[in-house]
């Protein structure tokens, strides 16, 4: 028996490892290459064969980035935008998810179907009026104008309703009511602590979504002081003669924070994908 297993292992499984290793290398290579380019002078780009070993210009290239875009301002703007949108979406979604799960009120089902419908409509449909609205209200070039669009997150309500239904027993709420708890008190002291794991999942989904979204930020943020990372990076590529070393240095330093967060919480990130979409 044992011999059989061993034989099977060595013959059948090797190609599988080869495929997985190649897939991993192809996934990682652009990250590595981005780092290499960020450390090379732009001339290195014209050399044949192309450079694939890091150079010495890490600091110089980043200095050039700082000279052409307000990098740290953009980083700060992005962090403020992502954090505030995430917090607000978590509050809105958990309140509504709690209501849809535990309260009965006329029209509840119609409202819920309406939320599902909003998930299907492509965001571009309203782009022009949204832009018009934001500009009329004087929110162009502000993080508020950039953030308001992401507050509309039907998936969040969907997830929260599911989670509250699964993990907050009706008896617990009944008991709290008998003790004279108000509904908001129940939300704050009973529901919130229980649904913390769902907060982590939804928080990661919203945070990465806002971090990477481009079309709306590109439309609303027009002056460099209000740029987020994505808009700032894209603007680096608009010059006629782009310095590739500088360009990828900008991309590298803008990507590093997210990679670090991902490596720390990779299980959470990966489970957020399945929880956010499979259910």
């Amino acid at each position, binding site marked *: 028996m044992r011999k059989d297993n061993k034989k099977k292992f060595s013959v059948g499984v090797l190609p599988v490892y080869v495929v997985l290793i190649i897939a991993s290398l192809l996934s990682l290579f652009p990250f590595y290459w981005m780092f290499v380019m960020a450390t090379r002078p732009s001339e290195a780009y014209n050399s044949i064969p192309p450079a694939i070993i890091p150079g010495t210009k890490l600091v110089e290239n980043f200095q050039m980035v700082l000279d052409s875009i307000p990098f740290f301002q953009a980083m700060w703007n992005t962090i403020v935008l992502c954090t505030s949108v995430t917090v607000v979406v978590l509050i809105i979604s958990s309140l509504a998810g709690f209501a849809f799960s535990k309260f009965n009120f006329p029209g509840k089902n119609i409202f819920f179907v309406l939320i599902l419908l909003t998930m299907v409509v492509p965001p571009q449909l309203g782009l022009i009026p949204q832009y018009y609205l934001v500009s009329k209200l004087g929110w162009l070039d502000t993080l508020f104008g950039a953030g308001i669009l992401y507050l509309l997150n039907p998936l969040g309500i969907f997830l929260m309703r599911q989670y509250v239904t699964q993990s907050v027993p009706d008896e617990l709420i009944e008991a709290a009511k008998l003790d004279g708890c108000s509904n908001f008190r129940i939300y704050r002291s009973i529901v919130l602590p229980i649904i913390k794991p769902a907060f982590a999942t939804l928080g990661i989904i919203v945070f990465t979504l806002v971090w990477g979204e481009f079309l709306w930020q590109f439309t609303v943020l027009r002056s460099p002081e209000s740029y987020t990372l994505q808009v700032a990076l894209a603007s680096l590529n608009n010059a006629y003669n782009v310095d590739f070393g500088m360009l*990828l240095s900008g991309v590298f330093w803008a990507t590093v924070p997210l990679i670090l967060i991902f490596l720390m919480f990779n299980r959470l990130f990966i489970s957020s994908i399945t929880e956010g979409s499979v259910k």
Partner: protein
Amino acid sequence: MELTRNKQESTAPKKRKLSERKKDMLSGYLYIAPFFIIFGVIGLYPALFSIVLAFNKWSGFGDMEFVGLQNFTLVLQDPLFWKSLYNTVIMGLMGTAPQLIVGIVLAYFLNMAVIKFTNFFRVTIFMPYITSMVAVALVFGVFFSNNESALANYVIGWFGIDPVNWKTSEWGAKIAISLMVFWRWVGYNTIIYLAGLQSIPKDLYEAATIDGANKVQQFFHITIPLLKPFILLTVFMSTVGAMQLFAEPTVFLGSSAFTRDEAMTVVMYLYRDAFNLNSFGTASATAVLLLIIIVVVASINTWLTSGKKLKKGRVKNAKR
């Protein structure tokens, strides 16, 4: 004595229950209100406004002028619209269809009990997804530059292919953009398929093995049919996402994004109409057309995928 006590007890909770129901109703409305206020202001109102705009001529200032279907005929008679639709469909197909196959194979491998280091492979294969679309487009933009010494040109040189002007050639731009879409999303789909595979009970495979089914038969008669809902989900999401392609080509092409047509997508066409040409009417008509296209294409794709898998399911049942 006992009777009266019972009566008292039963009336008191009833009263409280009634007021509690009202309270719950009020809380219910109150708690869903924030979402629906936001939905009304930045969701519903703009969507309806777009549909109205599609039938009007408007440059963002002054009065709108009702023009009937003129915006639609203008867009539908514009060769650039059809070119952008063609580009979107071609890049959508090239960027997402291979993900289906590669994603399922990778997920299948990651789900094999004998494979070690699966968490390492999972993390590395998923990692491209966390990079932003802009970052991917810029990195691939340097990789696929028009330069003769671009890394992409160096690599295809190994196979005896002449250097390509990736950013200004019809197929060069499309291939580069499809590849970056593929690279960023394949890990995401792999994770979804992996979740699907893990939901398939192990004893199904054991039973099939006892019945003498080999691995390939098991794959096509157990794995694929049971994976169907997950495949449908990814096909739906990929289709909708592909039809909305904007950031990758825009950033990849940089300053020539809205002046060349090799990789212009429908959303880029819409954006150009609205914000470069101030023609909000035709841009809104394009947005409405895009919505219709997305609904049609997503339905066709979902129908195709579910149809095929249904047949296989039937074969399996018949064999039983």
